[in-house]
């Protein structure tokens, strides 16, 4: 099924997806990735988006950071915003290096500690508070204002949690935000595929946003003539629909919400 995912985009998308993409100038949408624990799916997507030089921040919507333990009933549980990836890495290596190497946790945490300090919880995020203390995070440039244009969630319930939370906050900032769910199974392989899918979608969205801004000048809408080119916001459903054709196994949901 991975073969089907994104097969037709392979030629269109920039090829250098394993490494850093060359610095491409111009307008950049600000992205935010969200999964349950801000560990696997959102962090893989965070990494891939930051490698493509997008401003990106990431969060988890769970109440606690949960990582698999030696058995289903013994998960490793951590607090959001309080424990760094680095300390989790060291703790698990101490506990059972063999086990956590085999199940990929150490590898994941090692990747994460190279991306940012630690998992952050969506519900505790104060939208619009400057994030100047995050300078060492990957994808920091552009996120200093503490807002995002597009939120990618990696699971339906995270999308629900995000939208519900935005209702709770009451939209005090008057800033529109596209919330898009890309359903990714929570394992390392799928996270990698999902991250590529999200990057592909981000590229398509950013292309449209860039085009909108390049079409500078008058909107001239209220003197009669209809606008020739559709704006970024209204193109989003179409872009998501086209993307869904390319990535049929990553079911997507979109809404336009408010910060």
């Amino acid at each position: 099924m991975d073969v089907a995912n994104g097969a037709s985009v392979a030629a269109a998308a920039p090829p250098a997806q394993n490494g850093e993409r060359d610095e491409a100038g111009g307008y950049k949408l600000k992205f935010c990735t969200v999964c349950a624990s801000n560990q696997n799916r959102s962090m893989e997507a965070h990494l891939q988006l930051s490698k493509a030089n997008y401003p990106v921040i990431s969060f988890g919507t769970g109440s606690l950071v949960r990582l698999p333990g030696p058995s289903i009933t013994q998960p490793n549980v951590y607090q959001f915003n309080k424990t760094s990836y680095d300390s989790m890495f060291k703790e698990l290596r101490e506990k059972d290096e063999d086990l956590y190497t085999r199940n990929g946790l150490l590898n994941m945490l090692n990747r994460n500690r190279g991306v940012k300090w630690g998992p952050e919880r969506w519900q505790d995020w104060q939208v619009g508070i400057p994030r100047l203390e995050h300078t060492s995070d990957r994808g920091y440039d552009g996120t200093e204002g503490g807002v995002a244009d597009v939120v990618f969630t990696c699971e339906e319930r995270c999308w629900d949690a995000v939208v519900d939370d935005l209702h709770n906050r009451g939209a005090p900032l008057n800033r529109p935000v596209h919330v898009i769910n890309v359903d990714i199974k929570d394992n390392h392989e799928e996270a990698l595929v999902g991250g590529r899918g999200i990057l592909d979608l981000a590229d398509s969205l950013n292309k449209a946003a860039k085009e909108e801004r390049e079409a500078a000048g008058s909107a001239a809408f209220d003197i009669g003539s209809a606008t020739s080119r559709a704006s970024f916001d209204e193109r989003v459903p179409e872009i998501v629909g086209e993307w869904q054709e390319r990535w049929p196994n990553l079911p997507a949901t979109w809404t336009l919400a408010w910060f």
Partner: protein
Amino acid sequence: MATTPQLSVPDQIRQLQDARKLVLSDVSYYPQVIQATLPIIGPSAQVEFRRWGAEFLSEAFATPAVPLGQKETLSLLVLETLKLLVEDPNQDVVVLRSVIQTAASVYPLALRWIINNAYDTTTWDRMTVIKTRILRIWETAPPTVRICCIKFAQRVVLAQTPSVNPEPRRGDPLDISLLMIPPNHTVLEVPSLEAEASGLLDRMLGVLQDNSSDALIVDATLNTLSILIRARPGTSNRILNAILNFNPLKLASGPMTPKIKVIVRSMEKTTRMLLTHLSRRDSRNPHVGRIHQYLERLMQARAEVFDGASRKRAHVEQDGLDAKRQRMAALPQEFQIPPMAAGPHSLADVFSLTSNEGLKTFDVSVVPAALAAKISVTTIARIDPKLLDRVLNGVRDRLTALYQVAQQADNPETASLDVEDDDDYEPDYYAAEDNEQILNKLDSSEPSSSNRELQKPAVLSNFALPTFKLPPPPALNPDQAAVVGQGTVTRVFGVMSTLDEPASKKTKAGINRLAASSYDKDSWLTIITRLATRAPAGLNDVSVKDEHNSASASRINMSNSIRESLYAYVLDDFRKRIDIAVSWLNEEWYNDRVQQIAASDSARDVPLHYDKWALRMLDGFLPYLHAQDRVLTRFLSEIPDLNAAILGRVKTLCRDPTLVSLALNSLLYLVMMRPPVRNLALDAVQDIWKEYDEARPMAGKYLTKWRPGFLEAQQQLENGGGTPTGPQTVAAV
């Protein structure tokens, strides 16, 4: 920096970015930076600067980092610029968007300003011009600007309707409302503002009433409504009616292009999320019933629209490597048992294995029973037993799956409306750790999407098993209760004897000490003594009045049996445990007083325990005393009340000549150290002098000192023909 034309546009933007970084790190620079940049970003500036400036202003007035009061002052600076920018008919769309966003943030601030500064009509006029302009372009602007107009209108409605909070919460921009406007305001007229808000709300809801298929506009509208419904009760009826009459699936009847699929799904999910959110936030809302009905209908309709797609996906996902798939593969393939689709199910659905719609709707009850029986028997006789097993297991699996779903819905608040299993993920509603672990299990078991589809409220309402409640245990009769109570007391004593004696004398906590703040021996003793004395207090006297009430009689037994246990416990080792006796008797004495005071109003009699148990205690250990024991002295000096009866028992000690000095010294101690009972004690010494010849020398010595004149009086009495014994004995010694 405004006057450096030689700098290129990107360089100037870079400078502006530096200024922005400065205010992000310290918001107190906003006034200076805004004032310095306004000339650069004004209406005649190049589009790059206008875009940057409008975005910068929208950020400044949105960020929660700047306090509301400061924003209010800042708003006075920028209104003119905003007005000029928004009025330009050729304005850039990107600029316009940010300007309208800024205006939405500024509007409540400007309203608050004019409320408190009615003289400043210039400012309010500017705001009014901006508002008029925004509301005028609302219908004709491109969608990306229109959504911002909708948001602006929402803020106007919010500001111009009465808030749910009678006292506005300071610092919350969402709480600036009509309530803040005094009725006699010189500029603002409450009724016309309210009417304007009402009209704007109608315009906002128009998109739902027209059943628009423009997902961007519909979503943008729906996602602004929650705060209005929650914080502006006056609007909620109209808004909910509009939502409940909206059909987000209208487009689905036509051909489904990828874009339309996204749009339909988006509007359906956005509507559903808003309603779910509302009914969860306010489960007592009178509309909740209608909301639930609507959601159920929506789920059904959605299942019909997306059924094909989701079923296809479910099959695709089962091609993975999970265990379920392997089991399926081992089964004969000629007959598939389809997984349950989303939506509510009747019992018939669970047993329906055919996908033929015609067959499904066939009402079997029209077939005569005899014929039906004949058909069934023939069919079952011919059927391949393997196939029968398989379908039976299939149905059983369905029921198990549904049962598990019902089991998971353990939160009654959300269960009825829990349209997605995902909701329990929202941590605000669940705090318990075991839920975390359940979620962990769910996480790692990777439920297939078909399973997830099953976890729907509609299913729950049809299939939730009735709650089973264990019958309550039979009530204990008073005797049993007494026996059980006695058992409990015995156990507490048992626990206590296993505890170590406090290693060292604890420092006294003084007035801050608590009766029982730890689980050490002392604490248990305090609890026991209070159980004995206080717990049944007030019940006892009832039983005194009503002697035929066996229940109260057994309660008396209860507290008395604790007393007996305590008594036995102290006597077991009375030298060590005398302090327990003392604190117990203190409790008894205190309780007697309290009971007497309580009973004094109603002139009742209360049973008193102190005297009785003090005497019993004394009687209990007196026979075992020896001459060197100090325990008696201590006991007498520490118990709260002494009377003639108690001292009478002390007197009897003198029958044993070896204990005379013990008895007399204890009494002497009382004479010296407890002045209130001095006379009582001296009376006792006097009696000893009179009754026990062996004690006379010592008693006489004390009496000479403490009751001068007694001996002389006795002497005279005897000389005058009184009791003959005394003087001779004294003389003899």
